[in-house]
């Protein structure tokens, strides 16, 4: 047994968290002492999010209780997984795609660049759209959801926002988005709309990004010439 939170401590934090959302989220929780007990491999991670496949199913949040040294740390993990990964999927696929684009467009903005640096260090090899969702979840981790908070316009998915770039958004836009949708979620006014088969990560956007990086790699390795097509076998005479 690790020196982290006990299973009982973790379950109690999770129940309080679910209650703070008025039990509006269709999620199951798999709590184990370690990452190895969850996934069969060692790890120091705190939790993971497994989306539901459809609106009639439940997603799963996994928690490695022993990897958390405090209840506050577990609260942040829950906010990362639920207010980050679940909540961003309450947008429609098109809206989520726009949010992801906006976050990518803001990679070098002063308020988002520290989050981008952290994500790119941890996940250098995942597609950029997944990195952008991690930026969103990373911001959700530390947002203060204790009321009262001032709800403002949710403009995180809009085409034009503040900033130099047309699509650029600031950290405040994302925080406002999370708080607004947190409130809507508590009132039962929104539910998950984007599922893995309609997610930006599985669509052509990721494909085109992959293609761009493949092209870049080929250019960097002197492979920019067209690859010769395999020749057909000579016809028999």
């Amino acid at each position: 047994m690790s020196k982290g939170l006990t299973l009982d401590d973790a379950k109690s934090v999770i129940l309080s968290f679910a209650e703070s959302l008025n039990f509006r989220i269709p999620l199951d929780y798999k709590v184990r002492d370690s990452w190895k007990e969850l996934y069969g491999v060692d790890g120091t991670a705190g939790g993971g999010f497994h989306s539901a496949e459809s609106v009639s199913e439940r997603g799963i949040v996994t928690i490695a209780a022993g990897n958390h040294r405090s209840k506050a740390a577990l609260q942040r993990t829950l906010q990362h997984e639920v207010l980050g990964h679940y909540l961003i999927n309450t947008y429609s696929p098109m809206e989520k795609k726009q949010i992801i684009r906006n976050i990518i467009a803001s990679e070098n903005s002063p308020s988002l660049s520290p989050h981008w640096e952290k994500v790119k260090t941890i996940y250098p090899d995942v597609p950029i759209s997944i990195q952008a969702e991690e930026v969103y979840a990373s911001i959700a981790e530390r947002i203060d959801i204790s009321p009262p908070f001032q709800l403002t316009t949710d403009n995180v998915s809009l085409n034009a926002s503040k900033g130099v770039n047309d699509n650029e958004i600031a950290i405040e836009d994302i925080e406002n988005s999370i708080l607004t949708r947190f409130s809507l979620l508590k009132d039962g006014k929104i539910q998950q709309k984007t599922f893995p088969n309609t997610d930006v990560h599985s669509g052509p956007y990721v494909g085109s990004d992959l293609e761009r990086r493949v092209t870049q790699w080929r250019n960097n390795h002197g492979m920019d010439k067209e690859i010769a097509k395999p020749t057909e076998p000579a016809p028999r005479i």
Partner: protein
Amino acid sequence: MSDNVPTKDNDKTYAPRFLVTQEEFDKATQEEIEKFNYVVDETPMTPPRTYSIPTEDGDE
């Protein structure tokens, strides 16, 4: 935004279910089983591509 409109599921709530091992289920009291809505699930899971990393106060 399109989903600011209340849906017919407005009153729907979901008691969190805790997916536990058979051993944990067998050791639990009836009170615990009901409080935490225990369901036995020992299905092996594939690690997610991304995950959260616990941070303590003062980290970052």
